[in-house]
């Protein structure tokens, strides 16, 4: 572990951006650790939530954005629900994913790949096309064995339709994505 030179590494503009986009005041956090205590994913995190909050308070942008934690957070909101200072921690984690995505930090490629496949499916069909989504995910990650064992369980039950549910408004959805991209160009 090397010494963190706070005077040089503290990134205030980053702190402010996250506070603004999440509408949360990070200085309210007094590091009680209740978010970490409550987070069901701590065991899978590389940095526990309360330390993500602490790193935010000290503006350690890189450390935060390169963490797996921000991708593994499933937005279960136990942190938000139990924060004694009424900080919407889950929303902060959400915003950190947004920033990481925008600035090209992606520690958990598979998670992002799944998210992307999901959104692509919505964009294409207006509603999620589950099999299509899985195929796309496998294509993106090359993990062809993903959930192969589940197919036999589901197909006979007719739970997964082999064709997407086409909806009239699917172009409207595509336009939403298009405009979104233009807005954020």
């Amino acid at each position, binding site marked *: 572990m090397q010494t963190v030179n706070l005077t040089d590494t503290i990134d205030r503009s980053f702190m402010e951006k996250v506070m603004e986009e999440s509408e949360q005041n990070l200085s309210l956090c*007094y*590091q*009680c*650790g*209740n*978010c*970490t*205590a*409550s*987070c069901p994913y*701590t*065991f899978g995190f590389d940095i*526990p939530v*309360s*330390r993500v909050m602490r790193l935010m308070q000290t503006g350690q942008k890189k450390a935060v954005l390169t963490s797996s934690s921000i991708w593994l957070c499933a937005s279960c909101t*136990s942190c938000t629900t*139990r*924060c*004694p*200072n*009424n900080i919407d921690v889950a929303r902060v984690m959400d915003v950190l994913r947004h920033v990481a995505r925008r600035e090209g930090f992606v520690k958990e490629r598979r998670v992002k790949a799944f998210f992307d496949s999901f959104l692509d499916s919505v964009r294409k069909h207006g509603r999620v096309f589950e099999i299509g989504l899985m195929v796309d995910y496998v294509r993106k990650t090359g993990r062809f064995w993903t959930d192969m064992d589940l197919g036999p369980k589901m197909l006979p039950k007719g739970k997964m339709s082999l064709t997407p549910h086409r909806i009239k408004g699917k172009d409207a959805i595509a336009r939403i994505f298009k405009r979104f991209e233009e807005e954020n160009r």
Partner: protein
Amino acid sequence: MKIGVFVCHCGSNIEGTVDTKTVAEASLDFPEVTFATDTMYACSEPGQDGIIEAIEEHKLDGVVVASCTPRMHEPTFRKTLERAGLNPYMFEMANIREHVSWIGKDREANTNKAADLVRIAVEKLRRNQPLTPKEFDINRRVLVIGGGVAGIQAALDCAEAGLEVVMVERESTIGGKMAKLDKTFPTVDCSSCILGPRMVEIAQHPNITLYAYSEVESVSGYVGNFEVQVKKKATYVDWAKCTGCGECVEKCPSRKAPDPFNELLAPGRAINIPFPQAIPKKAYIQAEHCIKLTKDKCGNCAKVCPSDAINFEAKDEIITEEVGGIIAATGYDLFDWTVYEEYGGGRYPDVVTSLQYERMLSASGPTGGHVKRPSDGKEPKKVVFIQCVGSRDKSVGRPYCSGFCCMYTAKQAILTKDHIPDSESYVFYMDIRAPGKLYDEFTRRAMEEYGAQYIRGRVGMVYPDGEGQLVVRGADTLMGTQVEVKADLVVLAVGAEAAKNSPQLAEKLRISYDAYGFFMEGHPKLKPVETNTAGVYLAGACQGAKDIPASVGQGSAAAAKVIGLFSKEKLKSDPQTALVDIKRCIGCGKCAETCPFGAINMTEFRGQPKAEVLETVCQGCGLCAATCPQGAVQLKHFTDNQILAEVEALCRF
């Protein structure tokens, strides 16, 4: 009239953002101001001497000091005028510190505003009359509300000083929270051993009248002469006859009644004596649980009582007491922790409060001092203490620190090891607050000698593992991870909040209370046991969470204040009272109706009904002045003319 204006720098406090010299010069343009200067520290000795010299040299007969708030130094400067031979009420203050220099850095605006405030002070002063206070007698008896350790200390100190004391206690015994404790930090000496004798003294002291199981119903009057109505709640036991033998309790068949003294750990009887050292050691019946009183059956207690003290016909009675001073020592209550659903919200029997745990540890408690789990009576081997439950938690509306939980938790961890040598204690804490004498050393001992495992972090949830233990999932922020402890018993360090009905009592006493119901002291630093109502004082946790030494200290402090008050021959009333202009008064009586203090009598003058103010009773609120349709009643130094003059001074066109 020759008015002198003195503009204080207050070091840099005022001068920093107000040009005092300019303010002084501007003042010279105000009517009847013949002298004006700025001064470094008006309240200092040289400052005051400077005022006195100026008065003599310039033959001033009125003074305006522009400095801090009159709530601070008005008395100081009035004395200064007195020393210079002027009437102390020919004085006004302009608050250019709290209301100007400290609330903005705009020097130009501040200087201009300061001059404006001096202007209105001058306009008011021009219309002041010399006043002389009236003197009145003091009733040298004191009422102490609350028989906890703070109240006990205050009562005994007063009684020892020869004052007659009336003590009113809500419960059937005095002793308060301290009586429920097993041991006390940081000495670990037995709570009832040190409190017991003091309680006995209360019972035996010739100067003390104790009303237990009673409450203050109403308070009227004013400093030196209060009239207090005390409601003695029906106990259904004639305490004159009751010997406290406990026969009745033994034979009472109603065994599901609550036992508040034991924090509801175990059910009690409908007729009850809280604990062996109770003062008074008398039985009382909880009516709603008594079979006789609810169903008119049973009556065992009456049958077995050797002194035939039971009286099912008993009613509440009201007693009137006259006192000259009042000490409120009503203590605190525990925060209702059941809002913490993540800790079970009361669903898990083996999650208990710190005070319940004290009763488990206490030899006089329901388990006879043997620590047993409520669920199965087993002795716990792993005990987890969770701190800051209802403290430092905005999400439950309790942002403040209760102050003593860190210490009693350390104590309980130590006692746990004493009671169960092969036990392990875990303490989840956020910060250890141990600033008292020998306090930090004490918490260190809990860790170093008694091996208490301190874990820095809050607990997220507690749940039964299905095999008889509780899983406590928290964080260890120092390790930087989530931690789990399997516990046999979980003790919550529940925070303190204002005693139930504190606001209602405050309203009866006409004192202020804060957002949480704690009583407001006169000044956060300089008047810690005074209130803004003359003759009413505070002691102990009713003013804010406090531990035993602090509460006892305040008990003595409040007593000293009362003793000081009563040591005066007579009291002087504030002469800024209402006055009736007989010629204008039409005797409509509106003023007499509205006066909250009954300070206005209707009399006759040449056959005409007229209002008349009792100067020593009048508290100077001016309600009558605003009520009088004729403007016949005026409040001295706050007359219509004076206030209107101030208004005009501020906006002239």
